């Protein structure tokens, strides 16, 4: 593998998609399909969460099976903020990122001393510990979770309209993708990818490998926390289920379907998976079978993920 390189039309395509997304709420409203604005918001939020995992997994080479813990932590921070009377997203969302990021920093500081399957297991263990912590936390609703009485405000504007939350999620995702895109080409991203390719060699060039990995892991956690805070606003609930390992598994599947180590891998994966779920769930309750087949198909025919079909990563 080489350093990440944007595919040729990537910038143009993503700008076109951004414009399309900006128009989406009014188009859906015009056709009387407002219901789908909420669904589209969910897709954007999971695209953000999956992208944050892709930073850790795809660029950092760290197979974390506990990423949902940071998503859940962000959701709880939003709910707890509201409980404490803070209803402004400009305070609650950064707080969610900070808490989730610090949580990831702690988990990473311990987990990153291990490698391979041990790393997978220890991240899983931390996430499950967090899950049981929230399940048993009575003051935060135990296994019922903590609900939000209403959506927050963003810089004074209410997010209670579905389209308002949609635009907030779109802004968060766009900013994140711009940042991740810059980061991948910057010194930090190159170092991270070099570590992924050959850890020993990178250390033998004088790089403190552990520190780079840890920072990437914490950044991934922080952006998952942002996704969590948005998700709590969308669903009106911070539930322990968000921290479950199955949720971490879903994020992993999104990244794998989309394309590990491709900038838009997480976005593509979230879109594909959630649209599939949405369209099949009405047809059959056994939609997971189709998902399984899709995963098989991706592994067999597009092992680098769907994003890889649109452009090469290598220079």
């Amino acid at each position: 593998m080489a350093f990440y390189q944007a595919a040729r039309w990537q910038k143009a395509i993503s700008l076109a998609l951004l414009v399309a997304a900006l128009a989406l709420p009014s188009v859906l409203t015009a056709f009387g399909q407002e219901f789908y604005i909420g669904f589209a918001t969910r897709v954007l939020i999971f695209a953000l969460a999956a992208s944050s995992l892709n930073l850790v997994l795809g660029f950092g080479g760290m197979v974390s099976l506990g990423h949902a813990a940071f998503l859940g932590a962000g959701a709880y921070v939003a709910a707890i903020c509201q409980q404490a009377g803070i209803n402004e997203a400009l305070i609650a969302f950064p707080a969610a990122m900070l808490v989730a990021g610090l949580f990831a920093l702690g988990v990473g500081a311990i987990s990153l001393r291990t490698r391979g399957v041990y790393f997978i297991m220890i991240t899983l263990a931390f996430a499950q510990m967090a899950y049981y912590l929230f399940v048993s936390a009575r003051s935060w609703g135990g296994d019922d979770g903590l609900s939000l009485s209403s959506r927050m405000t963003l810089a004074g504007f209410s997010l209670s309209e579905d389209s308002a939350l949609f635009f907030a999620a779109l802004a968060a995702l766009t900013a994140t993708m711009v940042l991740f895109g810059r980061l991948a080409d910057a010194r930090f991203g190159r170092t991270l990818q070099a570590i992924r390719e050959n850890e020993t060699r990178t250390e033998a060039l004088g790089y403190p490998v552990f520190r780079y990995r840890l920072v990437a892991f914490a950044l991934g956690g922080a952006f998952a926390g942002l996704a969590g805070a948005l998700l709590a606003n969308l669903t009106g609930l911070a539930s322990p289920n968000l921290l479950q390992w199955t949720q971490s598994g879903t994020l992993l599947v999104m990244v794998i379907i989309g394309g590990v180590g491709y900038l838009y891998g997480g976005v593509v994966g979230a879109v594909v998976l959630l649209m599939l779920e949405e369209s099949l769930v009405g047809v059959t309750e056994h939609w997971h079978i189709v998902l399984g087949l899709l995963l098989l198909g991706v592994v067999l025919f597009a092992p680098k993920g769907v994003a890889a079909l649109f452009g090469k990563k290598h220079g």
Partner: protein
Amino acid sequence: MAEALLDVRQLSRRFAAVDALKAVNFSVAAGEVHALIGPNGAGKTTFIHHVSGALQPDSGSVHFAGRDVTRLAMHERVRVGMARSYQITNVFLGLSALDNVALAVQGRADAGSSFRFWRPVRQEAALFAEAQDYLVQVGLGNKAGSLAGQLSHGEQRALELAMALATKPQLLLLDEPMAGTGPEESARMVELIEQLARHVTILLVEHDMDAVFRLADRISVLVNGELICTGTPEEVKNDAGVRRAYLGDHL
């Protein structure tokens, strides 16, 4: 003798039932080319791993430029001026030769922090200009754009050397730089090391005796984890113990 740049004292390491290194005392003087030779399995690569910081000794210490570096991690030792090449070619095969060396330049303390998240590395012309200089120095000036994985074995060995050089070391640890190269490539590598030796102290582990005797100011002989002799090439050649243990009659 000039002041020792590298000073290894009573270094011991045991792997299960094997004493890989037995109280090795070893020093490299500033400016010299010091070769470490010994039969296969003598512990040469293990020794290099301990000097570079990839492995920790059971007992003993490693001093570099007057400082005890025994507890420093590998990356910290690189930062104080020790660089190594690998016996088995260890470069980033998916990257161009230039990117490989640029990564080494970028890792240096004087190149600034690599915790930079915004500016594309592509725009850092100085980084690549310097990397190109190192490529020229090892004779790969016209291979900058080639993927490392597509270079010949000898070119990859040279690339490895360029990466080590780009860390601006005071001491270069070369672990069998001639390993697997043909006679022509070996000759080129010997010339290259000769040139480098004018600016940097070298600890050379090598099996190619012609190269060793041509390059080394001093030679140490490691047999079964024990350092049995250190001296000038002439002294080592004539040492009865060395002849018995290792060199046999080829000299």
